[in-house]
């Protein structure tokens, strides 16, 4: 196998690592946004309860 072919494998491996890490960070970000939405909803409810 020639050296350029091996470079392709090298960059594929590192590409896979960064893609997986990026997907995980996106997953964390989504969970965080869902948490913020739930918190806003709770604030709205508590605010509504207080005004009652």
């Amino acid at each position, binding site marked *: *196998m020639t050296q350029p072919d091996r470079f392709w494998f*090298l960059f594929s491996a590192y590409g896979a690592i960064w893609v997986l890490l990026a997907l*995980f960070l996106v997953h964390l970000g989504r969970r965080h946004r869902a*948490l913020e939405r739930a918190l806003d909803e709770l604030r709205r409810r508590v605010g509504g309860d207080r005004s*009652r």
Partner: protein
Amino acid sequence: MTIRARIAPVADTVLPGFAFVAMLAALACVFLYVPNERMQGAVQRIFYFHVNAAWSAFFGFGLAALASALFLWRTDATYDRLARAAVEVGMLFCTMVLCTGPIWARPIWGTWWTWDPRLTMTVILWTIYAVYLVLRAMGEDDPQIARYAAVLAIVGVLDVPLIMVSVRLWRGIHPSVISAPAGQGGIQDARMIVALVVTLVAFTSLFLWLVWRRFEALRLEDELRALEDDVDALGGRAAVGGATP
């Protein structure tokens, strides 16, 4: 001051910056500093991230087993959250291992995959903790499911030492670089050892930061759920009170 309060300032501010810088240093070491390995050429550079992803996965599953044992003993939800966070991050790194391994194997072994003992047991490890995550996703708040999952996390980690000794025990084709006896393969160049150590520091700090973020998110989710229950209960009481003449 709780342990969490002591850890939080470092974990929220210092750790992500440190992990980022360490990862840049690791990439510089791998792509600019280390020499090409004589037999494998450039593709050997996969080794530095592959090995440290495996270390991080094992660390994650070990931490999850320890936290699960403490959860079963003390029935404190903090340990359960720590175990869950460690498994999720451990699974990320274990998936990295299973992706980078075949990419290295194709040019070196001439095949993407072989049922070598170490490879097979790594797939088993991945499957065990995938089942753990499925259990947690299905069980949500069920304490019984949390206990089953904790037992699974403890049993699953027994596969880690088997993976480590499998190369010598069953004479597979997977190279034993780190634990190779002197003069029988292993790392010969000091620069390769430096790159391996820098990458180890980078992966460990990244692992710790990700576990911390996930642990905090799980804690906030639990607190939010408890608050929602309180608000529901208060709302119900207010409704009953309002209906009473």
